[in-house]
């Protein structure tokens, strides 16, 4: 009997070996140069440690040596998918500190540009999310449409991704005379493609099986982690800065704050985060339509500014709702034309910090989907 017992003891000690796997920095679906150190038990993820900084460009240090307008091109390069939205909180903060009011026409153009860019960002987010799940075709449908949005933005600013279009006190240039009609045309195409992708991908049985009940993020955890944007709203919490603290002229528009409802699975899963982005594209289309109807046809696009933009000794945390969430710039002025301190509250950076929390216990294929549903851009994470 005793012998048998020892044998059982020995047998119970047999344990599977955990494997440590490096996902990235070069990997098809880390959306950039992110390295995830993953501990695997078979296929099941037991630990995720994100390592970042591969794209660190010393943005904050660099800006301390730049004048205020010179910072804008660097801000473009943070979240290079939605540069217009990046510039906005920064120029808004500088304008507040200088006490400038921008002309109404500028506000309308800013809203339209930012919303167009938001659609382009969400198109990439949904498209790459589908790609992570193995569906290649919707990806190209979205890229076809995104091209038309980029054409409008390019016509206005001269750049396809990095615009440098929102300037302190106004815009770099006025829009093209056919701008309104082009926007209305592109909205039609966006809606058609969204309807097609909803049928092809979003309500596909396999896609629902893959994304529902995966990576569940409860709302209280999301708030504690400081998540914002579709990641927080996907958990059913309607926090949208455009509605919660309306900046610029967002109080003039009628739009819904899209939240996840747990329609096909648990509230706060990957599918919910994705459907929030789909819904926000439609809401952005609505905002653009209203803005185009209200927008004055003529007017100045640049407020009179002093020759050198100086900010007195003061500080502000200027926030705006970027496609990825709550993007903030903490600007500290010191009386010169260069910032004393410029801190970016990078949305992707904070949203990414929730990844190790919500990906434990799922499979490695799910980990990729969870990462895709958070929608990070490494330019913003690493700064």
């Amino acid at each position, binding site marked *: 009997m005793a012998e048998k017992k020892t044998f059982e003891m020995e047998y119970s000690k047999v344990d599977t070996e955990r494997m440590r796997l490096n996902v990235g920095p070069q990997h*098809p*679906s880390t959306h950039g140069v992110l390295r995830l150190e993953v501990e695997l038990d078979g296929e099941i993820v037991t630990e995720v440690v994100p390592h970042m900084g591969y794209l660190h460009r010393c943005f904050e240090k660099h800006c301390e040596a730049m004048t205020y307008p010179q910072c804008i091109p660097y801000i473009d390069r943070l979240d290079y998918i939605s540069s217009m939205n990046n510039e906005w909180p920064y120029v808004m903060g500088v304008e507040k500190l200088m006490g400038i009011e921008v002309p109404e026409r500028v506000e309308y153009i800013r809203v339209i540009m930012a919303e167009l860019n938001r659609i382009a960002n969400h198109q990439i987010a949904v498209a790459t999310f589908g790609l*992570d799940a*193995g569906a290649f075709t919707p990806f190209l449908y979205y890229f076809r449409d995104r091209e038309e949005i980029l054409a409008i933005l390019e016509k206005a600013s001269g750049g396809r991704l990095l615009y440098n279009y929102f300037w302190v006190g106004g815009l770099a240039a006025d829009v093209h005379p056919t701008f309104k009609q082009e926007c209305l045309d592109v909205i039609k195409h966006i809606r058609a493609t969204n309807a097609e992708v909803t049928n*092809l991908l979003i309500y596909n049985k396999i896609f629902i099986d893959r994304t529902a009940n995966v990576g569940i993020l409860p709302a209280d955890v999301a708030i504690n982690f400081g998540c914002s944007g579709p990641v927080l709203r996907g958990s059913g919490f309607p926090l949208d800065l455009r509605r919660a603290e309306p900046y610029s002229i967002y109080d003039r528009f009628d739009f819904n704050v899209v939240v996840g409802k747990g329609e096909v699975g648990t509230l706060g899963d990957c599918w919910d985060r994705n459907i929030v982005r789909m819904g926000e594209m439609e809401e952005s289309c609505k905002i653009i339509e209203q803005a185009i109807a209200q927008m004055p046809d003529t007017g100045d696009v640049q407020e009179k500014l002093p020759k050198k933009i100086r900010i007195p000794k003061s500080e502000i945390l200027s926030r705006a709702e970027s496609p990825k969430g709550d993007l903030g710039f903490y600007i500290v002025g010191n009386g010169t034309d260069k910032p004393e301190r410029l801190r970016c509250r990078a949305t992707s950076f904070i949203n990414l910090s929730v990844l190790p929390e919500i990906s434990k216990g799922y499979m490695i294929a799910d980990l990729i989907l969870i990462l895709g549903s958070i929608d990070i851009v490494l330019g913003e994470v690493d700064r």
Partner: protein
Amino acid sequence: METNIFIQLLGNNWIAYTAIAVLPLGFLLLYALVAILAELKVSAWMQDRLGPMRTGPWGILQPLAEVVKLLQKEDITPDLANKVLYNLAPYMMFTGAYAAVAVIPFSQQFVPSNINLGLFYIFAVSAIATIGVVMGGWASNNKYSLLGAMRSVAQIISYEIPAAMAILATAVLASSLNLNEINTVQDGGIFNWFIFGGPGPWFKVFVLPFTFGLCLIYMIASLAETNRTPFDIPEGESELVAGYHTEYGGMKFAMFFLGEYVNMFIVSAIMATIFFGGWQSPFGSSIMSGPVWGLFWFLAKVGTVVFFQIWLRWTLPRLRVDQLMDLGWKYLLPMSFICFFAIALWKMLI
């Protein structure tokens, strides 16, 4: 009747056998080029783009250019790989796929080897390709490859069973394991194919749902066996980079690639043979029938099935590994048992 035109023409000698062996090889290489082009073009048209347009008119030389590119690549063997296994794996995979061609009836007059255990033979040799996958994944000494190989084995073992049930049911219907024999039984037009229950009186409609279901089961299982979307998890690009062939490059990768396309051909050919009448004309044995027409019908049927596989690949997302196992063991396997049982019962009663 002698079913091989080369033995009829050249006599029973080594020249004839060489021709019989070499002809399918040439055919498969040509087929692979066409299939790659089809994959490129079909995917392009589905995604509202043009696809390759620069190499040759309408880009038809693109697969050739890709083969040339792969040939020029440096032949790399990783330092810590198991060198023998690593270098053997791609050829193993191709050999397994190619060996299966031996029993496929291309036409009445051209069955490379008309053996009586054709169906069993195909199942036996197509499993060799799995060994190639495992060898490649293990020997690469790469964690992604290892995961891909493990997934591949699990997947192929799980889906071999429903596929085998589907095939055995047709063997029951035809009372033969000889593929050419199975083909001959389905004579007499489209409604005598095994997808429609095979030849029989009008009340074969009762067995029709089962044969139709078996055809679907075999279709799904064959997608899984060839690692095509939605079952391409062994090489699931977004999670495992390239799965079992992550470390391979150049000609060795080309062999894996070729093996995959040949595998596609094999499963499509089996499907065409056992469910769609193989070389039988859809209008009965009097219209558009004969050895050359037989080859045409066979290739047309195989091409349709291959197109269907490509179509699915560019439409569906990928399953997860546990969902794949669920589908295989919890749904396909019981369903295939039920269908098999129903067909066996019908065969006994009739």
